[in-house]
């Protein structure tokens, strides 16, 4: 059975991320992946796929907002969405939004 090119694709899909929390469950650090372009000796970019990635733990300097989203609860546990969102300011001044999937207990980063 072959895959067919889809006509509609999701946008800004969340990606799983590693988060360290304190005893209260609040995030204190987030691991982000940075793509580093690999340059040749002459300073020209190499073809796609030659880049390397680096994951780095960044401390949370401030939790700017916390809110919960509870959707599709009427469709049962299989389809229910229950998330606890955190708008974070990291110590490099970068802003990220992460959430904890309360049903599966997995952390995700919400795309911007």
């Amino acid at each position: 059975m072959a895959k067919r090119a889809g006509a509609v694709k999701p946008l800004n899909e969340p990606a799983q991320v590693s988060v360290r929390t304190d005893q209260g469950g609040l995030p204190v650090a987030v691991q982000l992946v940075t793509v580093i372009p690999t340059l040749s000796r002459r300073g020209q970019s190499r073809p796609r796929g030659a880049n390397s990635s680096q994951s780095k733990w960044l401390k949370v300097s401030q939790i700017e907002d916390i809110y919960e989203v509870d959707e599709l609860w009427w469709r049962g546990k299989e389809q229910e969405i229950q998330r606890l969102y955190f708008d974070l300011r990291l110590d490099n001044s970068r802003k990220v939004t992460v959430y904890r999937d309360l049903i599966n207990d997995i952390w995700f980063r919400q795309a911007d």
Partner: protein
Amino acid sequence: MTPWFSAADFRQEGSVRDRDERQIACVLVPNLHWQLAVSDDEALRDSPVVVASGRTSKPQRTVVDLSPGLTGVVAGMALDQALSRNSEAVLVEADFPAAETLNEKVLTALETAVPDVEEADLGIAYVDIGGVQLLYGDNTRVVQAISRAVSETFDLDIRIGIGPSKWLAYIAAMRSKPRTAYRLTTQAERFLKGLPVTVLPIEPKTISRMQEFGLSRLGDIGNKPRGAMHSQFGADGATAWDLANGIDQSPLVPRRTQETVSEYLEFPDSTVNLLNITTGIESLLSRAYARPLLRNRHARKCELQAQVFENAPWVMDVVFKEPAGSKSDALFAVKGKLDSTTIPGPLEDLRVTLSGLTGEQQRQESMWLEIKRQTDLSDSLSQLEQRIGEPPPIYRVQTLKPTSKVPEWRSALVQLSH
């Protein structure tokens, strides 16, 4: 002529719940490249065979197909790895043009028996037999008609499966044996449970990850919550869960028959001389444009195919910026691309196929800038589709639910079409 399929060869799994449920047949030509190789050289039938992609600019050759029953090798695997596991396997170059030509002939033969045929992949086609049952009488007669249409033209191992969805029809076809058909109904969950995850039509790396998690059977996946599968494996995980539970709502999309004009010649001697090759192309284009089908019409694409002496077949596609309505227009574009192409070896023959036939003779430009931009975009998409053979993966952002609490529901990517 006795049909190779009879009512006694019809196997069924599960029970029929509703006579009106959707009925789809999957026509499967298993190991198509291997079957092609065996038809050229019967001695290969009893040998372990690995069919590999030809020598290209890519650094690694991969396995395209293999002989039935060969273990330790799967399609898509690196050739080096496959041969290290089967040192006695015979290596055969994949003949993609011949495989595509054979596939096209099978699809055309199917369309003589049933109207709606979907070309899913090389060697896999889906047929909507729901309405056709009224024409032929019952499922058995429909399958007989399909098998007759194909078997009268080709001496191939063809399997037929029937189910209420494309997925179940495909699984049924995989289970069927030569000259039998198999039918799965909506109550076939028990049957699906024992199948390996390698049958799923998802990324191979996702399948490897699932196996690392201990999910080796569809039953292992079906027992997990759908949300957990989606969280861990993304969209592939959700798809796997649906299919493991026999859920497939994808519609059957009948293919659009494309008109083509094809001309062929054989060189007296194999040649790499560009002048000889260009002369051959010019001759073939002259013949093609003299055909009644191309009278007052234009072509958007030209495909060149040739058998290369002691090498894999050579294929070159030329998509015209403007539809070509004459030999000279087409030849100009082909020569331009040929100048920057390396012929891989002496050509033994040459085939020119013109497709994307259109009746356009003149263009009327719009004076409104926005409409002109949309027209230009539509033309570009059409040409790109001709070049790559499927709708181009170009999307625009479409706002769906701007006030949704779930951020990824607010917008989506919608594929552009011409």
